[in-house]
């Protein structure tokens, strides 16, 4: 029995190559998004998750069918990891009806309800109360499901964060709150936005169980998520996961990052790239890695073709979906 539980609490070794593939898919997808944005093809604000692939994949791999997530403005990785097809995501970024939000949402409002994605949110902390409410529903209905909310370090200062976590702990609902702590609230470093140097301390204010993990190590993320999900699912209350993450790029595409030491991202990339870390661990040869890369790059290229060939909404479709 202990052995079975042990297996369930860590990523099976056989899955790791697929995990790497998924992280690489997100990486290549995000790079393509940057490229197409710079080419002038994508409207709106875009925030890519390059460097934060492990948190999205590690957490979403740990979920069970029926679990739900809410995401942030940096949502592409979470959305892909939760099962939305790259075609549907790319089509949304191009504003096409084939997109996962049918052109009504865009990068910061990605929804895929069928796959348990309750939506990305462009208001910092805006989705966290929904997670408390979704988890309350699961509790009231006696369903063994968990609601998982992603948020960044910047969100730990906003009221919805404090109110939602306080309420979740008070009611012991099956929720997991995942802090992707990349140390930047847009352009503002953590030292300027939080009095705490260890943001997992925030959980103490609610008496909530906190787990810390290296957000750049997908196996560590998975393990933390499994532990948290089991705790929440078994009725022991919500859990706060603190993931130590790295944002390799700017806040948004085109961000000149004048606020950040020039070599910081480069150095972090050399030492804390979640894809390189897992690749090394797996001992993949260059050829093997290139094969994976070719495979995911083709998927990403195909998603662009799919999106470009997609259908523009009729302008007057803007007046639909306002009311049920």
């Amino acid at each position, binding site marked *: 029995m202990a052995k079975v539980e042990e297996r369930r609490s860590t990523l099976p070794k056989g899955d790791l190559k697929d995990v790497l593939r998924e992280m690489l898919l997100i990486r290549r997808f995000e790079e393509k998004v940057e490229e197409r944005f710079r080419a002038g093809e994508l409207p709106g604000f875009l925030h890519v998750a390059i460097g934060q692939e492990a948190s999205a994949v590690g957490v979403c791999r740990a979920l069970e069918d029926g679990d739900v997530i809410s995401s942030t403005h940096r949502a592409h990785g979470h959305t892909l990891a939760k099962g939305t097809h790259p075609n549907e995501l790319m089509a949304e970024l191009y504003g096409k009806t084939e997109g996962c939000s049918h052109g009504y949402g865009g990068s910061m409002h990605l*929804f895929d309800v*069928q796959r348990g994605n*309750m939506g990305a949110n462009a*208001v910092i902390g805006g989705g966290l109360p929904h997670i408390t*409410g979704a988890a309350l529903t699961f509790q009231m209905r006696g369903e063994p499901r968990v609601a998982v909310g992603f948020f960044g370090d910047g969100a730990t200062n906003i009221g*919805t964060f404090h109110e*939602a976590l*306080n309420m979740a702990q008070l009611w012991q609902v099956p929720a997991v709150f995942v802090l992707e702590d990349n140390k930047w609230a847009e352009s503002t470093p953590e030292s300027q936005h939080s009095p705490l140097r260890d943001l997992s301390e925030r959980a103490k204010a609610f008496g909530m169980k906190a787990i810390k993990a290296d957000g750049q190590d997908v196996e560590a993320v998975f393990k933390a998520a499994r532990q948290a999900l089991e705790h929440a699912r078994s009725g022991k209350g919500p859990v706060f996961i603190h993931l130590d993450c790295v944002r390799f790029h700017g806040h948004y595409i085109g961000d000149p990052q004048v606020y950040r030491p020039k070599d910081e991202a480069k150095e972090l990339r050399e030492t804390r790239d979640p894809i390189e870390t897992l690749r090394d661990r797996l001992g993949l040869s260059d050829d093997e890695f290139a094969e994976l890369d070719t495979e995911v790059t083709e998927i990403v290229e195909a998603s662009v073709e799919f999106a470009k060939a997609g259908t523009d909404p009729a302008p007057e479709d803007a007046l639909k979906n306002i009311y*049920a």
Partner: protein
Amino acid sequence: MPEITYREAVRDAIATAMRESDDVFIMGEDIAEMGGSMGVTQGLLEEFGKERVRNTPISEMALAGAAIGAAMQGMRPIAEIMYEDFLTLAAEQIVNQAAKVRYMSGGQLTVPVVFRTQGGAGWSPGAQHAQQLESWFVHIPGLKVIFASTPEDVRGLLWSAIHDDNPVVFFEHRTLYGIKGSVPEKIEAIPIGKARVHREGEDVTVIATGRLVHEALKAAEEAESQGISVEVVDPRTLQPLDEETLVASVKKTNRAVVAHEAVTRMGFGAEVASVLQYQAFDWLDAPIERVGAKFAPLPFAPVMEQFVVPHADDVLQAVLRTVGKS
């Protein structure tokens, strides 16, 4: 037809809906043992238990947001916001989230939540416990907004709001909780978006909401004694607005007064006046009159409070102006 109070009517709608479906539940501050700050939820805890009559911390953002999250998962929550002034605290969740989730998701989600709240002057609660903020919310696509003025209307409309698949901001008026009125034996849904003609008349239409419906009815009686026949119409639903009924009434009477307790400037009445002047321009025999609160926060001293908000006589004076008798 039994007679019940406005307060009992609200309670009856909630309790009946909760009896019929486990998806309906209510949460809010002090609503359980205390029965709500206005006594509306008294007795519900005993019948339904603390899971479904859920006291919350003083956390309007999370209270509204958790209700939204539950609604996104298929529940039909009623979130009681103790005073409508506190809607400002929940506004992010109501305006940016509840109103837009369906839209942003391209129609994948519905958010069947009711934000029940109350306010209103007349008892000196001061500037932070009696505002009328309905015009903030009628401006938001995706929300429905209801403001009922009688026991029958409040019960039938709350019933409809609970069963509607859209987020509804439901305003009650504090001073109306004690009024009595007859209601059907069994709850009958009142369609959202349908105005009610309270009194038929020939010379002037008064379109009034909330407490001002009752003030308008008093003014109409006084006007009648002066030989002026006043029609009183309550839109009941502010969003969507039953333009057809309002316009038809004004085309009949050729004169209109719009009355609400909220501040006149930029108020709901401005929109109604615009609808009327555009759709009934050729029928109007006088400028549309607007009655509302003066442009001031609500003061504490009773004499000042009475001065700021409108009363029956303000409606009467407006009616008289439309017929050139003031």
